[in-house]
């Protein structure tokens, strides 16, 4: 029991931190530009595929650096030459633009790498158990993922809190127009933030790719969860995104590891076999089986009871 608790907590925090690498960019982009970027998970996928391609030619470590830089540059180009033009036609056009972009990126990835999973592997230098807890060997690569995510989070926090550019970004979260009228080039800040956001998502892709499956549907699988994180945390709130990332990371991990069911929970009080014929399945569904629904259930509940999210400021 303790073993499941320990390993699941570690896995949950890891999954949460990976979610936060993406949700942080998504939520900052939303606050500053008012754009809900549907293509954000696509940058994560691009990161994984670029990382795969570079790692098989040069190695994993160069990929960890180069792939996010490439994706960041693509993100900046998309902001500069796409989004900024579309912006003049309003939010609906922007939403449709980023929505269309997800398909362009997905089809592009399928043209180059096909629909089947690619063989993106954990680098040999990290392919060993980090430690053995109880009877489980915990892989070193997972520890590496966790530490990388935490390190990036720390650097990001430092930049936002301590540098002038961080101050401008923080100011632009609430009053982007005013920042411009004080003489700061807001367009350039937007481009930079969009690029850094895309790059962060790509980092998540590079380090999650070998541990999960690197496949052309990975953006589609992750995208919805990302929106759950951002909405539950509160649109535009970095602290909220952090909280929600961990919450959903832990929630899903623990749910998958749990085999509790209504029948088990109620024990002897559960309906007798005769009564169970009616609605028979419900009593024996385990939490693990409903795990995929849980984040969305949380989303629905949050929208009903606390529409601005855990830490969101605005109602919209």
């Amino acid at each position, binding site marked *: 029991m303790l073993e499941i608790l320990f390993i699941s907590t570690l896995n949950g925090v890891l999954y949460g931190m990976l979610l936060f690498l993406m949700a942080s960019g998504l939520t900052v982009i939303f606050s500053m530009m008012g754009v809900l970027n549907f293509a954000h998970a696509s940058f994560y996928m691009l990161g994984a595929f670029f990382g795969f391609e570079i790692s098989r030619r040069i190695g994993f470590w160069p990929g960890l650096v180069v792939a996010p830089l490439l994706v960041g540059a693509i993100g900046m180009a998309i902001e500069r030459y796409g989004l900024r033009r579309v912006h003049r036609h309003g939010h609906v056009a922007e939403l449709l633009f980023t929505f269309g972009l997800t398909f362009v990126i997905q089809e592009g990835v399928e043209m180059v790498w096909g629909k089947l999973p690619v063989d993106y592997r954990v680098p040999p230098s990290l392919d060993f158990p980090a430690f053995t807890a109880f009877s489980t060997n915990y892989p070193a690569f997972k520890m590496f993922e966790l530490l990388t995510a935490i390190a990036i989070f720390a650097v990001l926090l430092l930049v936002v809190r301590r540098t*002038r550019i961080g*101050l*401008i970004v*923080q*100011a632009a*979260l*609430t*009053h982007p*127009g*005013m*920042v*411009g*009228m*004080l*003489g*700061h*080039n*807001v*367009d350039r800040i937007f481009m930079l933030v969009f690029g850094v956001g895309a790059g962060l998502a790509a980092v998540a892709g590079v380090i999650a790719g070998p541990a999960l499956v690197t496949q052309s549907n990975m953006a589609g699988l992750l995208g919805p969860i990302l929106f759950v994180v951002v909405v539950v945390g509160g649109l535009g709130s970095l602290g909220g995104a952090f909280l929600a990332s961990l919450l959903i990371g832990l929630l899903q991990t623990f749910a998958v590891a749990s085999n509790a069911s209504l029948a088990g929970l109620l024990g002897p009080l559960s309906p007798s076999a005769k009564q169970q014929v009616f609605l028979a399945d419900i009593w024996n569904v385990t939490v693990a089986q409903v795990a995929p629904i849980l984040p969305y259930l949380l989303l629905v509940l949050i929208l009903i009871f606390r529409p601005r999210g855990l830490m969101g400021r605005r109602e919209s």
Partner: protein
Amino acid sequence: MLTVRDLHAYYGKSHILQGVHFTVGDKEIVSILGRNGVGRSTTLKAIMGDPAPSGEITFNGKPIAGLKPHEIARRGIGYVPEERAIFPALTVEQNLLLGLKPGQTSGRWSIEETWRLFPQLRERAEAPGGALSGGEQQMLTICRTLMGDPDLIMIDEPTEGLAPQMVERIGELLLEIARRGIAIVLVEQRLVIALRISHRVYVMGHGRIVFEGTPAELMANADIRREWLEV
């Protein structure tokens, strides 16, 4: 210094400014008066480039219509919006520091000077801007724009919703700004302050200028006041 000719601006399909013209001379204090909704705030915003203006705007002899807000700010026009736009999560000091333009060190105004003029801001230097009172926020937002060392500052309704004592202090600050040779465009509802400190006044109605003259001329013209100012 600032010349505005035949200025038009739209919000969506509504034609808000329908050919506004006015001028501001060096070191002059000019007020734009009028009732709510006649386009006074939009005039200031359009000069800053958002909403995009059409017409002719020249500043220090050069056209600025069509430039981006940050470019216009860098030419030397400061803008203080009606809603104040304090960055709520940043401290008072950080709010002031953001008034400095990129690469700029310090001009006619420094942070020390802000502290000297407004000791109560200094006491709250580390407090988040969102925690200030309305009057303190108004001082902070004006001082923030002054940090950028503008040649002309446009201030929208600085006394709105403030206690009489605070209104007096804002009036003193405006005179102090003018003493340092900075031109001021003031948008105001309260006639008292505006008429006392302005060199010239304009009255707006329905997106146009309907009167221009000195404060004394406006006081003498009861028809204009009745038709365009009194509620």
